[in-house]
């Protein structure tokens, strides 16, 4: 297991009560592992079935591997425009 920091925004930041959280995930870990860990935290019940995740500022599907040092962010449903 290792620790990864995940950035949170907007409604997710409110749900988790923080602008970032640290999750413990297997090493190596995938985006899906990160989402699973987030879902088990207090507030994680607000997450939809497949929340959007960005790795290093690009959307990344569940199968992508992530490691410490990457910028990982959980993206609520976007509402720009």
């Amino acid at each position: 297991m290792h620790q990864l920091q995940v950035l949170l925004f907007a409604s997710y930041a409110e749900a988790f009560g923080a602008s970032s959280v640290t999750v413990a995930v297997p090493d190596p870990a995938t985006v899906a592992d990160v989402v699973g860990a987030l879902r088990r935290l207090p507030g994680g019940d607000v997450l939809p079935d497949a929340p959007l995740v960005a790795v290093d500022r690009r959307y990344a599907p569940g199968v992508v591997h992530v490691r410490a040092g990457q910028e990982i962010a959980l993206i609520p449903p976007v509402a720009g425009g």
Partner: protein
Amino acid sequence: MIRTAITTSPIDAAALLAEVTTDATGATALFLGTVREVNDGRAVTGIEYSAYTAMAGEELQRIAKEASERFDGLRIAVEHRVGTLALREISVAIAVAHARRAPALETSRTIIEALKQRVPIWKRESYVDGDRQWVDPTTAHVSATAP
């Protein structure tokens, strides 16, 4: 020419028009998103836009770049504002100029549709009754949050 920005300043639509229009362009398409008073049947007094600013800037640039590759000679300027906006203020402006109208019009549309799908920006509406809610387009209604 492509310029995109996430900005905290009021958007100057006329400046964007002037920026993309040149002697070589014959058609300029501008799209503006503005804050409106009613959403989902509730009276809105203002909107707070927030962003994952670093990614939003990069994603907006990628969208404009992808759109620019469909036609030669496009000139594109896009700004999205963040912060607290009052009614009628501009949240997003997309200006596209080209020699011909079809590329200008189609590119403008392509960019706003992609922006709405992909750019990590969120908005929280404030209502007359003091409540505030995050807008969630995926559920077609707003999701309740603490006021």
